[in-house]
C-alpha cells in the first residue's frame, strides 16, 4: 500500500484506484466518476466501490431494507459489494478488513482496527489513536504463549494417546483370550453333553424298569417343583422391585414434602397448588392407614430354599415316593409343620386301618430315586459349562462393543473414561464424567441432578472471541459431547448437556451455562481436544509401536 491509495483500500484492490483523475466502479465499468467522488462519504457506485474508506455504501447489503438501485446486479440495494470491507493496515500488527458499518460511527474499534483509521472523519469529535504498537506486541506475546501452551498440550495428548492405545490393546488381548476360552468351552460343552446323554439314557432304562415309577404324580411333582422355583424367583424379583419402588416412593415423598414446605403458596400456579393439595391429602391418608401386615420375615421364610427343614421337602416326593397312591401317605408333606404331628397321627392310624382291612396294599416299593446321582452330576457339569460359556460370550460381546465404540480420534477418550472434572459455579458444583454423565450437585444439600447421559460425539463450529486466559472455545470445528435424557424438569423436558471441548493443557471445566431451561452447555478444556502439532512419528502410530 502506498500513500496514494485511498483510505480503506486493501492491497489487492489498490490497482483499481491507481488513476488520479477518474475512478471506474469496479463491477460497473460503464460508470466513471471523478476521483473526488471517491471517499466523499456519498455512495455513487452500485457496487459501493467508490467508498472504500467510509460507511456511505454500507446499506448495499441483503440485510438492509431493499430499495431500487439502477446499475446494481439485482437492480436493488439487495446486492453484493465489490469490496470485502474497510482495510485497516494496522502497521505493527496484522492488517484486517472491518465491516463498513463500523466506519465513522464514533467508536474506535481498536480490537479490529488498531491503527484507528476507521474513524478518520472524527464524527462527534471521536479521535482514535494508533495503538498497533502495543496491541501488536501484546498479540505476539500471547501468540507465543499460546504456541508454547499448544506444544505442551500436544505432548499431553500424545501421552493420552499412548494410554488409550495401551487400554485398547488390553481390551483386544482380552478379546483374544476370551475367544480362546470360549472355543475351549464349546468343546468341553459338547463332551459333557455327550456324557450326560449317555448317562441319562442308561439310567432311564433303569428307571423304566422300576414298577410304578414315573406315574402321573411323579411328573406333576416335577412340574410343580419347577413351577415353585419359578414363582420363588419371581417373588424374589418382585421383592427387589418392591424395595426399589419403596426407595423411589420415599424419595418422591421427600421431594413433595420439600415442595410443600418451600413452594410459594401464592404463586398463582394452579398446577403447583393442586399438587400440594394432593400431597397433603395423600400424607393425611397415609398417617391413618393401617400398615399392611406382610412382614418381611414371612416372605423371607417363603423364599428359603426348600429342604427337609423348611418349605416343601421335595426329596420326600422324588426320592421315596413313586406311586400315585403315595399322595395319601405323604399328604403331610404339604402341610405346614405346625399341624404335621396331629395330621400325621391321624393319617397313620387311618393308614393302618386301611391296610389291616385290605383296602390298601402294603407300601409297594422302597426307594428308587427318579434321577440317579450319576445323571445329576453329569447334568450339573453340563450346566456349569453352559453357564460359563454364556458368561464369557457376553463378556466378549461387551469387549467387542467397547472396541467398536467411538472414542474419538485416536481412541483418545479411552484414556479419560471413568475420570471426572468438576467446577464450582454459584450454589452448584457441576461435574462431567467422561463418557458417562454430567451432574449438578447442590451445595445446599438438595441432592444431585443428572444433566444427561453420554450419547455420542459430534462436531460443531465454534465462533467465539479469544479470551486472554486462553480458556475459551475460539473459532473452528470443535468436538461436542452430547449428554441426553438426564433428569426431567418440572414442567419441562429431560435435561441435556452439550459439552464443548477445546484444547488445553489439562482437563478443566471452564464454564457451565443454562441458556434455557434444562439445556446446559459446558465448556471444557482438555488435551484430548488438541491438534497434534510437532513430534514427527508420534500420534496415530501408537498401534504399530506395540
Amino acid at each position, binding site marked *: 500500500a502506498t500513500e496514494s491509495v485511498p483510505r480503506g483500500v486493501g492491497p489487492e484492490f489498490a490497482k483499481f484506484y491507481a488513476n488520479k483523475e477518474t475512478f471506474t466502479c469496479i463491477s460497473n465499468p460503464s460508470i466513471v466518476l471523478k476521483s473526488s*467522488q471517491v471517499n*466523499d*462519504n*456519498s455512495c*455513487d457506485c452500485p457496487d459501493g466501490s467508490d467508498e472504500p474508506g467510509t*460507511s*456511505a455504501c*454500507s*446499506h448495499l*447489503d*441483503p*440485510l*438492509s*431494507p*431493499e*430499495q*431500487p438501485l*439502477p446499475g446494481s446486479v439485482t437492480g436493488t440495494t439487495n446486492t453484493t459489494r465489490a469490496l470485502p470491507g474497510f482495510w485497516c493496515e494496522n502497521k505493527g500488527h496484522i492488517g484486517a478488513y472491518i*465491516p463498513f*458499518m*463500523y466506519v*465513522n*460511527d*464514533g*467508536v474506535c474499534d481498536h480490537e479490529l482496527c488498531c491503527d484507528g483509521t476507521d474513524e478518520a*472523519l472524527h*464524527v*462527534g*469529535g471521536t479521535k482514535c489513536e494508533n495503538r498497533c504498537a502495543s496491541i501488536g506486541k501484546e498479540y505476539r506475546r500471547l501468540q507465543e504463549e499460546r504456541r508454547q501452551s499448544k506444544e505442551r498440550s500436544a505432548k499431553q495428548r500424545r501421552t493420552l494417546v499412548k494410554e488409550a492405545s495401551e487400554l485398547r490393546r488390553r481390551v483386544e488381548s482380552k478379546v483374544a483370550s476370551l475367544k480362546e476360552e470360549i472355543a475351549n468351552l464349546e468343546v468341553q460343552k459338547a463332551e459333557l453333553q455327550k456324557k450326560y446323554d449317555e448317562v441319562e439314557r442308561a439310567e432311564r432304562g433303569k428307571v423304566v424298569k422300576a414298577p410304578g415309577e414315573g406315574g402321573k404324580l411323579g411328573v406333576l411333582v416335577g412340574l410343580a417343583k419347577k413351577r415353585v422355583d419359578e414363582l420363588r424367583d419371581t417373588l424374589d424379583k418382585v421383592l427387589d422391585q418392591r424395595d426399589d419402588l419403596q426407595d423411589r416412593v420415599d424419595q418422591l415423598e421427600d421431594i413433595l414434602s420439600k415442595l410443600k414446605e418451600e413452594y*410459594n*403458596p*401464592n*404463586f*398463582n400456579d*394452579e398446577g403447583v397448588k393442586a399438587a400440594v393439595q394432593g400431597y397433603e391429602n395423600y400424607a393425611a391418608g397415609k398417617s391413618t392407614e393401617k400398615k399392611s401386615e406382610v412382614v418381611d420375615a414371612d416372605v423371607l421364610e417363603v423364599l428359603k430354599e426348600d429342604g427337609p427343614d423348611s418349605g416343601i421337602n421335595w426329596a420326600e416326593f422324588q426320592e421315596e415316593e413313586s406311586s400315585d397312591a403315595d399322595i395319601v401317605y405323604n399328604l403331610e408333606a404339604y402341610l405346614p409343620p405346625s399341624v404335621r404331628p396331629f395330621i400325621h397321627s391321624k393319617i397313620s392310624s387311618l393308614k393302618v386301618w386301611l391296610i389291616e382291612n385290605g383296602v390298601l396294599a402294603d407300601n409297594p416299593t422302597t426307594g428308587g430315586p427318579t434321577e440317579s446321582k450319576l445323571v445329576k452330576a453329569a447334568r450339573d457339569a453340563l450346566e456349569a459349562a453352559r453357564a460359563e460359556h454364556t458368561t464369557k460370550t457376553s463378556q466378549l460381546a461387551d469387549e467387542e462393543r467397547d472396541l467398536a465404540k467411538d472414542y474419538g480420534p485416536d481412541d483418545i477418550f479411552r484414556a479419560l473414561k471413568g475420570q471426572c472434572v468438576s467446577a464450582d*459455579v*454459584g*450454589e452448584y458444583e457441576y461435574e462431567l464424567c467422561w463418557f458417562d454423565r454430567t451432574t449438578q450437585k447442590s451445595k445446599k444439600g438438595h441432592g444431585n441432578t443428572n444433566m444427561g447421559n453420554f450419547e455420542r460425539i459430534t462436531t460443531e463450529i465454534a*465462533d*467465539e*472471541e479469544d479470551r486472554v486466559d486462553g480458556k475459551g472455545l475460539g473459532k473452528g470445528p470443535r468436538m461436542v459431547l452430547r449428554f441426553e435424557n438426564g433428569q426431567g424438569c418440572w*414442567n*419441562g423436558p429431560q435435561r441435556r448437556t452439550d459439552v464443548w471441548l477445546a484444547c488445553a493443557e489439562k482437563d478443566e471445566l471452564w*464454564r457451565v*451455562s*443454562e*441458556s*434455557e*431451561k434444562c439445556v446446559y452447555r459446558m465448556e471444557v478444556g482438555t488435551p484430548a481436544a488438541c491438534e497434534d502439532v510437532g513430534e514427527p512419528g508420534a500420534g496415530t502410530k501408537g498401534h504399530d509401536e506395540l
Partner: protein
Amino acid sequence: VKEHDFKKCDQAGFCKRNRAFADHVVANTAWESPYNILADSASFKDGQLQATILKTVNDAGETVRLPITVSFLESGTARVTVDEEKRQKGEIELRGDSKARKQRYNEAEQWVIVGGLTLDKEAKVDYQDDTQITVQYGPESKFEASIKFAPFSIDFKRDGDTHIKLNDKGLLNMEHWRPRIDASPAPEKQEGEDNSSSETESAETTAAQVPEAYPGEDQNTWWEESFGGNTDSKPRGPESVALDISFVGYDHIYGIPSHTGPLSLRQTRGGEGNFQEPYRMYNADVFEYILDSPMTLYGSIPFLQAHRKDSSVGIFWLNAAETWVDITKEKESKNPLALGIGSKTSTSTHWISEAGLLDVFVFLGPTPQDLIRKYSELTGTTAMPQEFSLGYHQCRWNYVSDEDVKDVDRKMDKFNIPYDVIWLDIEYTDDKKYFTWDGHSFADPIGMGKQLESHGRQLVAIIDPHIKNVDGYKVSEELKSQKFAVNNKDGEIFEGWCWPGSSHWVDAFNAAARKWWATLFKYARFEGSMRNTWIWNDMNEPSVFNGPETTMPKDNLHYGNWEHRDIHNLNGLTFHNATFEALKSREAGEFRRPFVLTRSFFAGSQRLGAMWTGDNQAAWDHLEGSIPMVLSQNIAGFPFSGADVGGFFGNPEKELLTRWYQAGAFYPFFRAHAHIDSRRREPYLAGEPYTTIIAAALRLRYSLLPSWYTAFRQAYLTNEPVIKPMFYTHPNEEAGFAIDDQFFVGNTGLLAKPVTQKDKETVDIWIPDNEVYYDYFTYDIIPSNKGKTVTLDAPLSKIPLLMQGGHIFARRDRPRRSSTLMKWDDYTLVVTVGKDGKTAEGDLYVDDGDSYEFEKGQYIYRKFILDGDAKTISSVDGEDRKKVKEGDWMKKMHQVTVDKIIIVGAPASWDKQEVTVESEGETWTATLEYTPAGKGRAAFAVVKKVGARIGADWKVSFA
C-alpha cells in the same frame, strides 16, 4: 386465564347493584331520577357553576345534599364534579374503628391533571330560570351546556346540536353514606362466599333500611364482601358513583384501554357479537390473558371518544377506583315513518365506579385531533423519550449471567443485527432483592455495562414495588423503619407475597417515600448501575400473589389514610412516577431524560415513559390482537406502547416470530421478550431465511428512526398518536372507522399493514383517499381507489408498507450497531410526490436524544417543502430558531448533512444530470440521477451528495 380469579360484574357488589338499577330503570318507563338541583342554589361565576343537588332517598322525601360544580375551561372543555356533603365534611362514622379517610377521594387530580384547568372567563349564562340554566362557552361560544334541574341532567351541544347527554337515562347514582342497621335475620351471605360479618351492631333493630336506589334493591353487598377467600371490610359501606353518558348519533366509540378486542368498542349487554360483561378497569396482573374480552388488564385510561362522520366528541372519567363501563347502541329514527332512512345510531355508556367523586370532563371536538389535544392539555403529553428507546430492545426472562448478556451482545454484532437495549428480568437480583446483584451469575455488572456502552448500548434492569421482607436487606429495613410502605386496614405494615416471597410495598403516594426511593438509584448507592442502566417497573398494579384478584386488599391504607380502593388504578402511575423522578438525576449535576417501562398505568402515565401490553402468548391471534391494543393506546394519549415481540408465553414457530418482528418494527415501543420456560429465540438463532428477514425488519426500523423520533416530538407537543388508525387520519371515511389492523406512522404518510396470519402471502389494504400510493420497497404505484382495498403480495420477506403521496420524510440509511452510533450519520430524504405531481412536504426533528437541553432550544426542527411546481425542494426552519445560541451538540451537528434526496414519482421534466444546491450563501451543483417509470414502477430521481447541513436552510433547484 384463570377467569375465576377475576370478578365478573355480578361478583362486584357495586357493579351488580348499578347494573340491576339500570335494568330496573329501563323496565320502568315511569321511573324518574331522584336527583334534582336546588334551583336557588345555582350560582355562576367566572366560568364556574356551583349548585347543590338534592337526592331524595325515601318516600318520606328525605334528601341528601350533593354539591355540584360545573367548570368551563379555557380549552373549551367542561368539567362536572359532584361530591357528597356529609362525607366531604367528615360527618359520618366508619365501622370497625377504621382509620380510613371519610371523604370521597379527591386527590386523583393531583396525580393526573397537570394543566388546562384555567376557567373560561368568557363563558356566560345564556338562559336561566327555575328549571334550567344554559351556559355558552368554548371557542366562539359554539359550545353550550344545558343544565336541567329536575331531574338533573346536562345536554352538551355544539353549534346548537346535542352531542353528549349526562343522566339522560336517569342512571345517575351516588350511593350516599348511611349507617349500618342490621335487620334480622342477618344479611344473606353472598352465594358461595365465606362472608364473615363480625360487625353485629344492633341485631334487634328491625327498622327497615331505606331502600337505596330503587324499591327492592338488593342490599346484600352493601357491607363486607368476599371474593376468592378474601374479605373486604368496606368500612365506609356502599359509596359507588355511576352515571349514564349518551353520545347522540354516534355509532363508534374508542378508548378506555387496556383491553383486548377491537379498537371500535363492542356493546356489553349481550346479543350477537357483543360482550356480556361491561368493560372493566381495575388494574390487575392477569395471568395468560385472553383475547377479545372486556376483562380488565394491567392499566387503564378512562378516556373515551365517540366518533362519526365529521364529528368526534369524548369524555374523561377521572376516577381511580374500580370502574366498569356498559355500552349499548340503539338505532333511532327521526321520522318513524321513514323506516330506517335517516335513522342513526346512538351510543350510551354507563359508568360505574366503586368510590370517589363523580368527576367527568366533556370534550366537544369536533375532530379526533381536538379530543386528544384537549385531553392532553389536562393530563400531559408524551415525555420526550431517550432516543435509544425507539430502537430495538432485546429482552428475556432471563439472561442468566453477565457472560450471557455479553455473549448475546457479541452475537448480535456477529450477525449484523442492530439493537440498543438488553434487558434483565428478576433473576439478576440476589434472591429477588432489588438494587442487588446475584453474586455468582452477575459478578461483574460493571464489566457487562462497559461492554454494552462501548457500542452505545444500554441495559434495563427490573425494579418492582414489592420489597423483600427479610432481615439484613437495607432497602427493606429503611422502608420499615421510615414507614414508607403501604399499610393494612389496621394501620400496620401490609405484608403480602410476590416474587421474593413475603414482601412489603413502597407507598409512592407518600412524597417522603418517593424522595427516599430516588436515593436508592444513585450510582453510588445502586452498585453495578451505570449511566447506561435504565429501569423497568413491573408488577405495579400492584401484583400481590395472595391478594384478592392478585392485587392488594381494597381496605389497605395508603399515605393520608386513603383506602386502596380509592387509589387502586393510580397505584401503577405513582410508582412509575417515583422511578421516573429518581432517574432524572443519579448524581450531582446530572439531568437526563429517564427511560422507565411500566406495566401498570393510568391517565397521565404518558408523561413518564413507555408501557407494554403485558404477558401475551406466542400465538398468531396474539400477534393480530396486539395491533388494535397498541392503536388503542395511541388514540388514548399513551402512544409509547408495544406488545412483547414473539409472545411472552410459549415458543413461536419461526414464521410467527418473523412476522412478529415485522409488525413489532412498527410498534412505538419495540421489544422482544420471552418467558423463562421458553426456548431461546434471539434473532440470530432463527436460522435462514428467518434471521436475514428479521435483521431486515430491524434495519427498516433503524433507518426510519429519524421519522419515528419526529413523530415522538409531535407526541411530546400535542400528544398526537405515533401510529394512527384510519378513523383518526380520515375522520370522514366511514368505511375506515372499524379498521384496526393498518395504520399510518406519524406524519410520514407511511401506511403499514403487518401480516398477522399464518401462511398468508397477500394482504388487503384499505385505501382511505385519492392520493397516490407507492410501495415502499419497489416504488411501484399501487393501483388504488379511495375506499377500496388493494391486494398486495406479502411473502415472508416482505412487510406490506405503502408511501402515501405528498410527504417528505427522513431516513438514515447506514446500518449501524445501535441508534447511538447513528447519531452523526448523514440523512436521506424521501419525497413522495403527491397525485398532483408537484407537491410534498414533511418535517424532521433532531436533538441530542438524551438531555433536557432541547427545552432550551437545543434542537433542529426542519420543514421540507417540494414547491408547487416541483421546481425546488427546500429546507426551512420549522420554528423560529434565530435566537438560539448553539450549544455543544448543535455545533457538532454542523458535520451532519443531507446525503441523498430520493424523489419517488419524479416528474419527467427532471430527466437531467445536475441540480443546483444553495445553502448558507453558497451555490454548488449536485448530480441528479433520473430513472424513468418502468413496469408498474413510478419514475424516481436521486439527488446525490446534496451536501447541505441538516440544520441549515437550503434549496435544491430543478429548474
